[in-house]
């Protein structure tokens, strides 16, 4: 408890420091071109919509693009709470459901705060040596209602930065799926703070903020490496460090919640993927189409494989396949054509199934809800296949192996590999720090009683 309190005190201190700091700068009305001064390169993964091309001189907000991006931001928020919280909470045991939901909830809150304090500037501030963004927008200094970022030239910077925040939040939350039913809540709180700061922020910079992977030409439309590979590896490493649960079975407390969560994830993912076009345009349309198609194909593929392999098609299988498809199409959504989407969907429905049903028991790590099996494997698949199927007639910015550019595949492999190694090493270090600060696991008896009772003093259901 004492250690925990010190962690909180640090958090609160940072917060108040931030307030004072921001207070001082008294935000003057900022000219729209502020962002341009950073000299950030135009977004590679999201070419300007044809409409925007008409207004080259001063950056100007387009109400249509803005309308879509406000909604897209809200949609990605919904993916965390309640989407992922339901998906994970329903899969957890009855006695751990609420704790599982709380992990996503608190991660979203923490990311929301840290992002405006320093996450945004270190991710999307002026690039420093390809590794990290500059500190010029600490506490959103200099960002006002009229600011526009060079990375999203037709929408208010406030929306752009909130949109990016929602990605940070869900990436952290995703990892929790591998840790539930045994991790201390205080440990998770600290994990959220440290992992978002030390892992998410730099990786986001590398790929989307003009860092070295962006310069290398890595394609990641909506977060295959930044989000899913990143979180999936953190999930695996964390699961190994935490060790196995006492009761290793997956005994879903409430599959109606799982279906609900899967539905909300699917719905919100349109914001995630089609929103990554950063405008209401044909590219967003392509991303929407690819997302929905790959997801449906993956769900059906998982169902068919399971039907043949285990005699019965489970509803959890349908939902898992759908999530697998959503994950795998994420990096590819704005680059591939419909055939690419179908192939990616098939791969995402079949390969994660075997990862989960066959590889996991074999390797013996205890990834409770298969955050690695679905997000890690699915994200890797998607990132690599983007290098194969990226079709320049969909998006000029991406040209894959099939369209005569084998180098893209190499680039994709590098991006995935770098992310994997970095995420693994840093996650290990972070778990080490947490172990020292507050410990990782609850007592065995607390685990038996359930984490709802032991961590929160609550019960999910009083029915």
């Amino acid at each position, binding site marked *: 408890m004492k250690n925990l309190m010190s962690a909180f005190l640090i958090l609160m201190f940072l917060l108040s420091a931030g307030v004072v700091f921001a207070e001082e700068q008294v935000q003057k009305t900022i000219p729209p071109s502020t962002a341009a001064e950073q000299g950030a390169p135009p977004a590679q993964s999201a070419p300007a919509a044809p409409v925007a091309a008409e207004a080259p001189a001063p950056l100007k907000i387009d109400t249509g693009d803005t309308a879509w991006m406000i909604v897209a931001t809200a949609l990605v928020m919904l993916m965390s709470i309640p989407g992922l919280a339901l998906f994970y909470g329903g899969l957890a045991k009855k006695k751990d459901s609420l704790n599982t939901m709380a992990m996503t909830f608190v991660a979203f809150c923490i990311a929301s705060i840290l992002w405006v304090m320093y996450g945004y500037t270190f991710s999307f501030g002026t690039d420093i040596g390809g590794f990290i963004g500059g500190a010029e927008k600490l506490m959103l200094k200099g960002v006002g209602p009229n600011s526009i970022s060079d990375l999203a030239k037709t929408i208010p910077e406030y929306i752009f930065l909130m949109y990016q925040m929602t990605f940070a939040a869900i990436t952290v939350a995703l990892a929790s799926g591998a840790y539930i039913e045994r991790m201390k809540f205080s440990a998770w709180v600290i994990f959220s703070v440290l992992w978002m700061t030390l892992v998410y922020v730099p990786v986001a910079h590398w790929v989307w903020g003009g860092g070295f992977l962006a310069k290398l030409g890595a394609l990641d439309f909506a977060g295959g490496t930044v989000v899913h590979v990143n979180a999936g590896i953190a999930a695996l490493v964390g699961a190994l460090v935490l060790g196995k649960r006492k009761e290793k079975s997956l005994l879903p407390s409430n599959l109606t919640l799982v279906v609900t969560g899967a539905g909300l994830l699917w719905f919100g993912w349109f914001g995630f993927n089609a929103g990554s076009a950063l405008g209401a345009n044909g590219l967003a349309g392509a991303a929407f189409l690819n997302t929905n198609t790959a997801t449906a194909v993956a769900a059906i593929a998982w169902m068919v494989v399971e039907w043949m392999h285990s005699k019965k098609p489970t509803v959890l299988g349908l939902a898992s396949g759908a999530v697998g498809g959503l994950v795998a199409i994420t990096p590819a959504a704005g680059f591939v054509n419909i055939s690419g989407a179908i192939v990616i969907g098939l791969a995402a429905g079949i390969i994660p199934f075997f990862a*989960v*049903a066959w590889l996991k028991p074999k390797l013996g790590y205890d990834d409770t809800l298969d955050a690695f099996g679905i997000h890690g494997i699915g994200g890797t698949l998607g990132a690599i296949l983007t290098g194969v199927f990226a079709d320049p007639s969909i998006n000029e910015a991406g040209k894959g192996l099939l369209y005569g550019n084998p180098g893209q595949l190499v680039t994709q492999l590098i991006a995935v590999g770098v992310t994997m190694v970095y995420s693994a090493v840093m996650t290990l270090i972070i778990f080490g720090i947490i172990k020292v600060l507050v410990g990782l696991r609850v007592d065995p008896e607390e685990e038996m009683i359930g984490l709802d009772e032991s961590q929160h003093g609550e019960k999910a259901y009083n029915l």
Partner: protein
Amino acid sequence: MKKIEAIIKPFKLDEVKDALNEIGIQGMTVTEVKGFGRQKGHVELYRGAEYDIAFIPKVKLDVVVPDSLVAKTVAAIEAKAKTGKIGDGKIFILPVEEVLRIRTGETGEAAI
């Protein structure tokens, strides 16, 4: 008086209840229970991995009857609850010393 405790398969409850009503038994109490026995729990497959669900949902029927009705009651339950497959359940007969109907205060067989 005896208390007859029958552990049966849940989907047989309606039939058994009707059979008991027919032989003149008007009251009974039903509890949802989990059974462990020779019938092995089924295997649930989540994401391709097998999980043993050791216990099996059963219902327990408590019927208190006058001694005169014991045989008939047991026979009725046996007849209706039987599928011949493992896990059909058991009937236990326990002695009851007294019965009281709360509403009226009646006791003994009149209270059943």
